[in-house]
């Protein structure tokens, strides 16, 4: 028998699908990641390429780039984060609704990259929690897609998806049928 999160046998259950809440919630979330392009430098060019028809990020359900943090659930930090911009990055992250994920795209966002200087934050993980780091300067669009698929995998494995902590409080979502 195939190991699956979903149990469905039309002869036995008719129109009923048996599953776990986590599995179905994560399935929905992982296939409709709405990214917010936090394009700060050259990496953003590759991010744009990933949205074009050649690389076509929409194959993975992520083409809905939202420029408002309130409508996005994955911030792709693509570029050099200066100290002056770091404040803005954190504020935008705070404005995103839970659940939310962060992808650090490229050397600069991951570690400060080659900008070892007075003006550059040495890695965006100093101010926001990062889920996926993508290496490269810049990473090719394929690398971004690979990173985003890893993020999907990570989302699918999250437990307690109906329970989230936000600012130290635990928020429980109840399913009523």
């Amino acid at each position, binding site marked *: 028998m195939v190991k699956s999160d979903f149990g469905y046998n039309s002869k036995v259950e008719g129109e009923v699908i048996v599953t776990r809440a986590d599995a179905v919630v994560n399935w929905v979330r992982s296939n409709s990641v709405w990214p917010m392009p936090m394009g700060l430098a050259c990496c953003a060019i590759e991010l744009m390429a990933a949205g074009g028809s050649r690389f076509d990020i929409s194959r993975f359900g992520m083409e809905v780039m939202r420029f408002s943090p309130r409508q996005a659930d994955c911030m792709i930090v693509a570029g050099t984060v200066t100290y002056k911009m770091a404040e803005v990055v954190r504020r935008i992250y705070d404005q995103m609704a839970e659940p939310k994920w962060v992808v650090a795209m490229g050397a600069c966002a991951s570690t400060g990259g080659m900008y070892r200087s007075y003006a*550059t934050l040495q890695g965006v993980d100093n101010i926001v929690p990062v889920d996926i780091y993508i290496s490269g300067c810049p990473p090719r669009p394929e690398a971004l897609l690979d990173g985003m698929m890893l993020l999907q995998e990570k989302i699918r494995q999250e437990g307690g998806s109906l329970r989230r902590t936000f600012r130290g409080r635990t928020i429980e979502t109840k399913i009523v049928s």
Partner: protein
Amino acid sequence: MDAAALTSRFPATQDLAGKDMPTFRVAAGDLLAAVRFLRDEHGFDLLADLCGLELQGRPVRFGVVLHLLSTTHKEYVRLHVDAVGDRVPSVSSLHPGANWHEREAYDMFGIVFEGHPDPRRILMWDSYPYHPLRKDFPLAGIEVPFPAADVAEVTGQKVEPAPMMGGPFVSHGGKLSEGEPSALDQSWTEEKPKA
């Protein structure tokens, strides 16, 4: 343009015999009048560039260099101005394009442009206490509080000197150059803190 036109009108002007374009050292007090004279009477109607300058170990530490272009005569002229202390007159009343250039020169070198309509920093954040392109400023930076206090409180982040070890600006063969003291300050690393 005839070099004598400027030097006879402004006797304090020195002809620096530029090899690529006419170059003059203009006294700070004459700057506005000279730029207006060049604009109105010699057609130098475009300010192509304005940059700050720090000359270490010379009597005058700061200066400004202006490149003016005549769009009718297709020629350039270059003006050097020595700052008086750290002050230079602003030419943004004559060439509005100077506005941001002067803000950048102020931000990076701390050159104060007298009469500038909006003398704020342009690249670093407003409360930043240093002028990072000065030669006595280490490339790695100096620890200061994070620009936004509320973000600093949540993240515990400060503006810290960047780690230089293994980075692209570290010289492995000793000193980079005597003329670039910020690059000399590479003696410390993550493992060997700054003395």
